[in-house]
């Protein structure tokens, strides 16, 4: 897997940036500080699988007192479990003790239990999870490509813009994954630039 880390020059061009290897990306994701979130563009499902499987495994090993909340879109929740198990993650055990929650992001968005509109449900879910698990840190991995299909690009822009601010005081960090092609369709060039500006050095573009 090749990847490009955007170093804040607002460019999404894979050729204009340095190319860290898989380990470097993993290292970067593992060291995302609490209260921050990263925007990660992935080229295909296979690449995303490699990243989330390695990341979740290492995250749970290095910080056992944490909860991974994984909101999948292109993979079924059963397939996520399969991918993680194949990578040596004790999925059943983690789900049983509450250190891993795997949900279909579409089911979260359609869940009437959350009395807030669409994308706000993600924030609400994170807050509820944090409340439920007391002093544990919540690591959220969400495939935001869903919002290309639900045609909610403007809401996503607002969400991404305010996420840093809202997360400051809370014990969670979030990795927002987007399929590259969905991302290109969702946002205009100007919106895409604005998103890069919000995230500055917190953008990873994988090839």
């Amino acid at each position, binding site marked *: 897997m090749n990847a490009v880390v955007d170093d804040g020059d607002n460019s999404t061009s894979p050729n204009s940036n340095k190319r860290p290897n898989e380990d470097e990306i993993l290292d970067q994701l593992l060291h995302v500080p609490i209260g921050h979130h990263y925007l990660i563009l992935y080229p295909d499902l296979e690449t995303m699988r490699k990243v989330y499987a390695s990341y979740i495994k290492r995250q749970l090993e290095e910080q056992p007192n944490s909860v991974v909340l994984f909101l999948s879109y*292109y993979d*079924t929740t059963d*397939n996520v479990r399969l991918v993680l198990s194949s990578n040596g993650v004790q999925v059943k055990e983690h789900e049983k003790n509450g250190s891993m929650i795997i949900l279909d992001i*579409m089911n979260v968005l359609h869940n009437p239990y959350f009395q807030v509109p669409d994308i706000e449900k993600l924030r609400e879910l994170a807050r509820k999870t944090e409340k439920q698990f007391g002093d544990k840190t919540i690591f959220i991995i969400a495939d935001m490509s869903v919002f290309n*299909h639900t045609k909610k690009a403007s809401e996503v822009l607002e969400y991404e813009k305010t996420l840093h601010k809202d997360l400051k005081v809370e014990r969670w960090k979030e990795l927002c994954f987007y399929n590259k*092609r969905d991302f290109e369709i969702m946002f205009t060039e100007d919106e895409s630039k604005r998103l890069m500006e919000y995230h500055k050095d917190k953008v990873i573009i994988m090839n």
Partner: protein
Amino acid sequence: MFIAIIDDEPDLAYLFKEALSQIDGVQVFAFTDPLLALEHFQANHQNYSVIISDYRMPTMTGLELLSKIKDINPAVTRIMMSAFEIQDGLFQEYNCVDKFLQKPILMTDLINEVRMIVSKVQILDTNRIP
């Protein structure tokens, strides 16, 4: 007679293509990109008899794709397959799916389903007044 299978997972698209190629008299095209599939369909729609599409795919959903397919040539049979549940409301909204198949799908079931459609089309073609 053309058949297209569209699935963003290359391995699955390839498997489906291989399986459906067993049907006599058909040429199967596999696409991982719905936009490319649409482009091919647009140029060759008169040769197509069946389109089989996954639901959740980057760039556009299978429902959006099949809806565009229907607009171009409503005579083509449109099959949707998915490992996910799809809300009834969405089916009604798009009104473009002739048959829904739940994944995982047995290859023999898929082949039988498509073979049946192809036979019907072949009979219609044979009986068509020139």
